[in-house]
């Protein structure tokens, strides 16, 4: 709808007000708005709470946001495809625990990462294959597979995972760390590079264009030489891959393995993608938007905690803010507009 509006006004009249309005409704407008909101929230925090913009606070904010941003890459891709991935928190937990365990068993850490990521990608591919090939809602498939994965990990570690990450992984994500002369750990610039790459892949590669097309109209995909099963397998395995990377980074961040470390990411990744302007019906969304959504969520969280809200109240406010934001710019079309 929004894109249509942008086009029409472009053709019809160039009234500034109309342009601004349709611009805000357009995809880029949504992203811009989400960034603006993050900025305003930060400003409010700086004015209301002393030390909100202190170097340490900003470092912490950036690192926490970076971790959520990595976890949300997969959700972004899957949502553009028209799916949803509930297995992300379970894969995060799997990678977190298994990496720690194997590293504790004196495996080479590069080999550990390779192993964990490959297994995660196979699980992801299975998610995609079952969902698309048999036309079962990915919500159910990823939930079921996720439960199996979590149960298997718990069974293997008997509920008491052990081990840790090598020091360089901890340094990579440590809030006190620094990337050469830069005042934040390497995870932040690394994410910036990764984000640029993801944006480029989505906008400028055959895979990216096929991803949007398939999400936009699955019924037309096969005739346009897109193989839906292959795309779903690839995309869900990418989602699992980034979840596994998040799990490994979290191992460095928290210092010890914890099977439920991924649980907050279940709804946070979805919320970040949605606040960033993607529609869960497929064909729309962007990783830049997700980054904006991640910043908004992290800012709200930090701000409310800084204002002395209890965790419960923070959660409630977060829910209200998500609804508010999405009701401003994430509305769907009325059924009469789809005929």
């Amino acid at each position, binding site marked *: 709808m929004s894109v249509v509006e942008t086009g029409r006004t472009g053709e019809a009249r160039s009234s500034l007000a109309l342009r601004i309005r349709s611009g805000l409704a357009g995809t880029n407008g949504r992203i811009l708005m989400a960034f603006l909101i993050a900025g305003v929230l930060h400003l409010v925090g700086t004015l209301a709470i002393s030390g909100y913009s202190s170097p340490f606070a900003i470092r912490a904010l950036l690192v926490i946001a970076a971790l959520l941003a990595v976890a949300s890459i997969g959700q972004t891709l899957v949502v553009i495809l028209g799916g949803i991935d509930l297995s992300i928190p379970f894969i995060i937990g799997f990678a977190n625990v298994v990496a720690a365990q194997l590293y504790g068993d004196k495996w080479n850490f590069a080999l550990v990462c390779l192993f964990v990521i490959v297994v995660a990608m196979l699980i992801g591919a299975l998610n995609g294959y079952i969902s698309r090939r048999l036309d079962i*809602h990915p919500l159910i498939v990823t*939930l*079921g597979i996720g439960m199996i994965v979590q*149960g298997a990990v718990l*069974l293997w570690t008997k509920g008491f995972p052990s081990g840790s990450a090598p020091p360089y992984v901890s340094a990579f994500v440590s809030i006190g760390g620094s990337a050469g002369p830069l005042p934040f750990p390497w995870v932040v610039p690394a994410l910036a590079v990764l984000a640029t790459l993801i944006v480029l892949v989505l906008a400028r590669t055959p895979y990216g264009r096929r991803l949007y097309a398939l999400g936009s109209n699955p019924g037309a995909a096969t005739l346009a030489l897109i193989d839906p099963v292959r795309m779903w397998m690839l995309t869900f395995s990418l989602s699992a891959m980034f979840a596994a990377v998040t799990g490994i980074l979290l191992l460095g961040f928290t210092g010890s393995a914890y099977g439920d470390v991924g649980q907050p990411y279940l709804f946070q990744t979805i919320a970040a993608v949605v606040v960033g302007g993607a529609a869960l019906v497929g064909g729309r969304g962007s990783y830049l938007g997700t980054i904006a959504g991640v910043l908004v969520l992290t800012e709200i969280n930090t701000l409310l905690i800084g204002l002395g809200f209890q965790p419960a109240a923070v959660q409630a406010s*977060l*829910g209200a803010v998500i609804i508010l934001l999405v009701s401003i710019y994430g509305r769907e*079309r009325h*059924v009469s507009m*789809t005929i």
Partner: protein
Amino acid sequence: MTKAFLQTLQGLRRDTGFALVLLVILLVVNLILNPARFQPSAWGSLIGLAAPLIGAAVASAPVILGGRGGIDISVGPLMGFVNAIVIQLLFLKAGISSPFGIIPAALLIGAAIGAINGALTTLVRIQPIVATLGTYLVLTGVTLTILPAPIGPAPGWLKALAGPWSALPLIALFAAWWTIRRLPYYDQLMAIGSDDRAAYTAGVDVTRVRFIAYVITGVFAAVAGLMLTALIGSADPNIGQAYTLISIAAVALGGVSLAGGRGGLVGASIGAIDIFLLQSVLTAFNVSTYVLQIAYGAILVAAVILTAVQERAARSREV
């Protein structure tokens, strides 16, 4: 007579996929493993034990039947919210202990939250999963704020609803749904679930029908919340959320299509009973909760796969 019965059974089996087969198998296994637990004298507490999950699954179904991504993930937190309000605010603080005060209040809360979800998804037109994720977070947070720690007890009559009278709330739920099924509303809901554009063109008020589905889900979730309260006999702020995903799993297991328009509440409750019985079997084997979780996931995935394969086979026979 027998033929008609068999046909009904056949129809039910088709609608519920493998859930019914699974139900029979699990029931037999349970009876063999643990006859004492399934004695008629134990039925009251057994049903009470299964009731919250059945209630949650039944509550999740109406909005899913309405299609176009309809889903309510706030069902679990709403159950917890009702649990907290009933015990903490109504019973302990306000001293209301009569069922005639508590039950209407609970249903009203359910209807109100359902109406909020309905308004957000149909009037504001937010994606159902996002809107109810918002209410999920709000309800969870508010519940924790009014009830920071578990507290008890519950009124005696309420506890009896998980014991000797445990069938009562379930009967009430099914009677309500049985009535709805006889209204033109039900046909409209199923029609928009399978094709909302066609239904809209045919003059169905899609917005109103979907809105009401959310209210029904809210009211049913409140009943499930009462059943949960009866079962635990206290208030616990952290117990509700767990029901969300497992109830959606039960619904899918029971052959309700997440795309809408196909399935029913009987299927949803069969799915829920499957999960309950599975839990019971595995507990009888004395396996760890980890194996239980693997089994949940595996059965869920296997059941939806088998149902999908079966449907495919049926479709290709038709062509």
